[in-house]
């Protein structure tokens, strides 16, 4: 895993991976919740947000987690208890599976395999199952409506997301996420290699579609129809309390972080920074210190992208279910198909 001087046994490596995975999921989630959900939203709404727990309320999240962990784990009487209890775990597990392919540095990754993009998109939709069974097993009409809406929405927005990524894959010529990072940072724009070649420049349409689809996958406003607290009373999450609700809550923001990681790998040059690639030819040339700097750069890019996601979330009203489907099938998918065609033609022609 890391190019360290000492040899780490296999079990040690596995342990490191698990710990690293937990950090890579929970740290972004906590940061997003504090920075954006607590503070940015409050400032947008002319209030201060949490101020009491820790300096500027920075310990508020720990207080909230403590509160949730103390609460009783309630399952409704009519619920299908086993499945009801399983659902939040499935949602959270899909986030952990998703982070496994994200490269944070030349050697700082959990696993590096050739079809990383494919895997990420496939695993990302596992959470649909969790949400659907949460909606069904709650034995609540609001939850059922929310679960059905979520299933319809997540399937509809899976497609533009995949299609938006295809453009990047065509341009990079690989499905390996590490390969995509290297392709972006070693590329050049009309002979100027200074800032590399982040795909957001050529794949701008793809980037926009990807971010919209991410917004919908995360069920954030304006695509929060499945949750819709003012009409469905939080939809599939209605009946959950205590630490199972906490799992949904962490899952929501952790997935936002992980999707932002993936978007920054695909479109913003991953763990390389503009103006700081120092002319390394390939992956083998990259020095070891990038394994430390890389995660930090990724973290900064992740915060930038989640900032956009949250900004939209706090200022937009939500779509209606049919408008949301119309938007996906009639606008996003045709545009992304057109994007693929144009990318492919230019790739072959140039």
């Amino acid at each position: 895993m890391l190019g360290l001087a000492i040899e780490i046994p296999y079990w040690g490596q596995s342990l490191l991976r698990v710990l690293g995975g937990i950090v890579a999921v929970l740290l972004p989630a906590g940061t997003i919740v504090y920075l954006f959900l607590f503070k940015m939203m409050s400032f947008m709404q002319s209030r201060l947000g949490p101020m009491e727990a820790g300096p500027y309320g920075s310990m508020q999240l720990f207080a909230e987690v403590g509160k949730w962990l103390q609460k009783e784990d309630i399952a409704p009487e009519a619920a299908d208890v086993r499945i009801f209890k399983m659902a939040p775990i499935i949602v959270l597990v899909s986030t952990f599976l998703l982070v496994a392919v994200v490269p944070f540095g030349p050697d700082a990754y959990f696993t590096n395999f050739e079809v990383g993009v494919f895997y990420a998109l496939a695993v990302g939709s596992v959470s649909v199952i969790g949400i659907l069974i949460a909606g069904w097993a709650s034995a609540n009409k609001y939850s059922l409506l929310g679960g059905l809406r979520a299933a319809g929405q997540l399937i509809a927005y899976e497609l533009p997301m995949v299609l938006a990524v295809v453009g990047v894959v065509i341009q990079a010529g690989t499905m390996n996420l590490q390969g995509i990072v290297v392709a972006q940072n070693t590329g050049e724009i009309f002979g100027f290699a200074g800032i590399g070649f982040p795909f957001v420049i050529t794949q701008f349409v793809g980037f926009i579609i990807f971010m919209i689809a991410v917004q919908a996958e995360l069920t954030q406003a304006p695509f929060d129809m499945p949750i819709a607290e003012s009409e469905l009373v939080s939809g599939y999450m209605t009946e959950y309390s205590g630490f199972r609700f906490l799992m949904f809550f962490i899952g929501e923001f952790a997935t936002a972080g992980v999707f932002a990681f993936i978007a920054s790998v695909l479109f913003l040059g991953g763990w390389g920074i503009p103006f700081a690639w120092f002319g390394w030819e390939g992956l083998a040339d990259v020095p070891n210190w990038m394994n430390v700097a890389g995660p930090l750069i990724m973290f900064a890019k992740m915060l930038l992208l989640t900032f956009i996601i949250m900004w939209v979330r706090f200022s937009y009203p939500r779509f209606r279910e049919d408008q949301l489907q119309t938007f996906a099938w009639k606008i996003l998918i045709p545009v992304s198909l057109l994007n693929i065609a144009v990318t492919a033609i230019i790739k072959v022609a140039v």
Partner: protein
Amino acid sequence: MTVLSDRQQLSYIAAQAADARLNVELETEGMTLNIGPQHPATHGTLRIIAHLDGEQVVWAEPSCGYMHRGYEKLTEVRTFPQVTTLINRIDWLGSFANEVPFILAAEKLMEIEAPPRAQYIRTILFELSRIANVSLFLGDLGVQMGAITPVFLAFRDREYVLNLIEGATGGRFHPNFDRIGGLKDDLPKGWIDETRQVMRKLRGFCDEIEDLLFGNEIFQSRMRGIGVIPADVAKSFGLSGANARASGIDWDLRRDQVLPMAWDKVDFKVWTHPDGDCFARCWIRLQETREATKIVDQLLDDLPPGPVMAKVPRIIKVPAGEAWVATENPLGEMGYYVVSKGDLGPFRVKIRSASFNNISVVPWVLKGVYVPDIITILASLYFILGDIDR
């Protein structure tokens, strides 16, 4: 349910029958969804029984009375000055506006009239409570649609108006300031200048909301063409206020009747909208908030000097008789039919509150809409639970 709604019902049944013929084994059963009495969208304890087919409403019916407080009966065991304390709580967002028609009815029976300064201040406070009421509606509209930011902006700017009401009357929510024959007190020092500043802020708030919500494409697509109430339907269900004006009915009790209030001394526009959909109803309310700020400004400009209380006996006995006074309250027409037998208190009071009539259109307008539109339509009809149940 009226004859008018049957067309929708019939087309729905025909579609069902066609489906059932195609695949009998897949024929499905509807679902009854109780929206409320505890539901965030009903902001109170209104219950809507909705029978759904998928996400489409087959029929819906409001069921009210969960918060009935028996004000009509309670007024019978109060003296006339005590009644204002009760009726303050009917529409709790614009309390002062509830007091005015009752006091006017009592004054009509006693054949006295408040001095001009009291009439002006009454009108100013009336319009301030309209602003306090409707500005919260404009923010709450965002929450119902999933946008959480506008409501905080609304609370921020409504606070200034509440401070004004508190400064003048001593009560933020329930002023209880109106007296038979005038007002309890004159305006405090410096209040007029502050009010002018606040009115400027409120106009800024209206612009902000127009930018943030009304100009938003998603908001418009959720609102336009949803929950259309034609003028004849609005009339037959007795809609009033902004709901009626949004259907193109040019009817405003501030302008269309003569009352001992100061509305005839100012120049304001009564907005109407031809569409009758949710967007029209919300837009009318936005314009009305702007008009209200202008009315307050104009009244402050030519506030007459003089006393704020007419000569009334120390113990108020209202002569026997019957009087009906209605005013254009924030939610619509609100009136009191007061019957007096010459005692200290009223013999019988009938309260006509706007929301009760406004939600009577719910079964008609909800037929055939989708579940998300229920919330939009209820939000745009704008009711206060206290005003429905009394």
